[in-house]
């Protein structure tokens, strides 16, 4: 899944509204179609907000310490008072672990998305605004990076730096930056071709000024949407890496790590493998829906351009 997610956000087609003027979808239908769009924004917002809240709460309150074993409580079933989702093989509360897992997922996912957003924006703008040689160098560099399977990079990086949250963030950055660069480059190019830019240039504005004053605000929508989608992809990737044992380790806890531990107990207690997986699906689903919803609101043009 992990590398599936690598290009999913950028290449994922927008659930494209039909190009105007084509009589396939009558206006009545069009209105009906708007409804699920707003719905996806709302559902996405709600899901994302829930997980953000959980992660915030986990900083101040946890039902119990998710790392301290209480052997007499081991493998309690779901529904046990005080441990409503049960406990794992060392008697550690599942809810507490899921809460800390949310924190890790958000930290790593957002960290990777933020870093690659920064680097990708810088590289993408540079490629779009500079001469042909810079553009070619950056674009080909991105192509090369994209051709190295992300898993391989992550494995080797984990061996080189030792696995942990920081390494995972860097691995995500390495995966995402090239596709981010491509998206930002093409969005910026689109803006740079507009008439008002030519006007600004004629007016004597410098390159940097034009980029900061005119281009950035115009691609902000794209950036926000892409950030959301890569955030989701980052969470999926982190889960996969931790599941493989090259992501985070205890005392850090992640949903992928919980699944790794749960698989060893599959023959003893199978529900352990359910909860962290559900958490991943809901959080990623929430972010993806949010991203799609935002795309409609912020940048209807992007939807067409992407497909």
């Amino acid at each position, binding site marked *: 899944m992990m590398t599936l997610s690598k290009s999913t956000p950028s290449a994922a087609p927008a659930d494209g509204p039909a190009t105007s003027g084509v009589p396939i979808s009558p206006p009545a239908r069009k209105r009906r179609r708007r409804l699920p769009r707003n719905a996806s924004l709302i559902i996405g917002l709600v899901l994302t907000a829930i997980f953000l809240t959980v992660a915030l709460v986990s900083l101040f309150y946890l039902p119990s310490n998710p790392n301290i*074993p209480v052997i007499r409580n081991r493998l309690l079933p779901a*529904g046990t008072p005080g441990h409503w989702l049960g406990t794992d093989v060392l008697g550690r509360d599942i809810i507490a672990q899921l809460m800390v897992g949310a924190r890790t997922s958000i930290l790593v996912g957002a960290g990777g998305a933020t870093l690659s957003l920064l680097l990708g924006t810088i590289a993408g703008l540079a490629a779009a605004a500079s001469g042909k040689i810079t553009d070619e160098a950056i674009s080909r560099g991105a192509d090369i990076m994209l051709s190295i399977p992300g898993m391989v990079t992550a494995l080797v990086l984990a061996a080189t730096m030792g696995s*942990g949250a920081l390494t995972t963030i860097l691995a995500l950055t390495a995966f995402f930056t090239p596709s981010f660069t491509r998206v930002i480059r093409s969005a910026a190019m689109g803006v740079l071709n507009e008439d008002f830019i030519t006007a600004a240039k004629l007016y004597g504005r410098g390159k940097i000024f034009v980029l900061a004053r005119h281009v950035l605000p115009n691609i902000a929508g794209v950036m926000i949407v892409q950030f959301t989608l890569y955030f989701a992809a980052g969470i999926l990737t982190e889960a996969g890496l931790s599941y493989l044992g090259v992501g985070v380790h205890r005392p850090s806890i992640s949903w992928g790590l919980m699944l790794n531990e749960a698989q060893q107990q599959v023959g003893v207690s199978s*529900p352990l493998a359910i909860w962290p997986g559900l958490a991943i699906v809901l959080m990623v689903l929430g972010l993806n829906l949010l991203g799609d919803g935002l795309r409609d609101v912020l940048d209807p043009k992007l939807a067409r351009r992407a497909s």
Partner: protein
Amino acid sequence: MQGKLNPIAKRLGLMSAAAAIFASAFGAADMAEAASPRAAENKMVLVARQDPGTLDFVKSNLTAMRLWIPANVVEPLVFFNKDGSVSPGVAESWTISDDKKTYTFKIRETTFSNGAPVTAEDVIYSLNTMKASPVVDYAAAYEAVTAIEKVDDRTVKVTLSRPSQNFWRGMGAISGLIQPEASASTIATNPIGTGPYKLKTYTTNSTFEFEANPSYWGEKPAVANVTVRIITDGTAGLNALEAGEVDSLPVITIDLWEQLSKRELDKKFTLVTYPQVGEPTYAVLNQKLDKDLRETIARTLDRQSYNDAFGAAWGAENTCTFALPNQVWYSPENAETCPFPYDMEGAMATIAEKGYASTPLEYASLSDVPDLSLPADIMVPAMQAAGFNVTRNAIDLARYSQLIFQGRPPQFDVTIMSGDANPVQWACPDPTKAGWSTYCSAEYTKALADADVALTDEDYAAQMKKSADILRKDAVIVPLIAKKGVGLFNPELKGFQEPRVGVAIEMGKLHW
């Protein structure tokens, strides 16, 4: 979420319960039959949990190799039996001089599985190769050896500078394995020997295929064709056994025991527990730490909770020895006879009193071995609760090996290891030769040396026990639990015997 999933889970449970009833009502006869096709074909399929990566028994010390190659494919000069007697191996007979400094081996007139005759030159080559082995445990047998010479075409004489128990015992272990010089280049994938089986193919991470060695000198193995499938996922291995796809899991690690008894596999299959392939689990504390500090760490280790964590008290006992019961330096210790028994309050008091909280400690943990990460999950929080400032450093195998064995001094404070340990590893004639835990004790080294030159078995055992005792009391090795060897066999597959050459499973003894 709960409301939705529970019914599904329940339904699944019901389905499997129904399936079980169905199977027990109609399937019992089928199951016994399911094993018979392979029995009739003179075959069996065993499961290994780990892939050795290399079969080079000169360079590798990995259990995953030692389980299958020695005794089955490559034989030592002699075999040490459980009752203490010695049987012939590649050496048909032998004489030991009265001063125990000259060993003369008469080589058996036989061939290797590739058809080449076994010569005195091959024996000399094999012993010299083992003498130069980079594996300390193997080379240690040859410390007293001064000469390995050919007497005639069938006789080899080994001269020692002093009596050496390590040498004699080594001749019945991996140190004494005999291989043909001509096949040295393929040892890592296709080791050749005189054993009851020859290795047909080895596919890493997948399978070993053995077939009976037609030129074997002894009694032909009862089952001519043996497949060993490597299934790293424990549950998958148990499933394969239950489904009748395989006939035995001869070595089942502790992380599967709870599942095994929960699924009642011990009732459907023959459960064998044997101490010799067991694994003592012990904490290793770096000797650069102050002795009082080491003792305090030792007192935070709750053996019972380790044992309970695996949910299979029937297979593991709390212990205070790192030896296997068949090793001469074994002594029947338990948690109470430890030099530093579990005492959390006492440890906390000492930590507060001596200000140990200010000493940062690093716990090196192997990130990819489940039955070693579980002890770390227990040990690190316990040490933290006691007041130690300990951080867990999760690293992969290569970094772990580098950190602990290659670094000098080794960069770790605490770690947990599993498996039999040869006390010789910690011999330290002078501080510059300190072993990987930086442990160096003149007293300990002397006890080991005395054991080596012992002329009687009793004396040898007494000195070895003494050395093991020193190691424990110095709180360098803190034994935690002793896991038994556990195997599951198809009820029709009989004849399992405890290993004679290290931990090797002697497949030739099994029969339908």
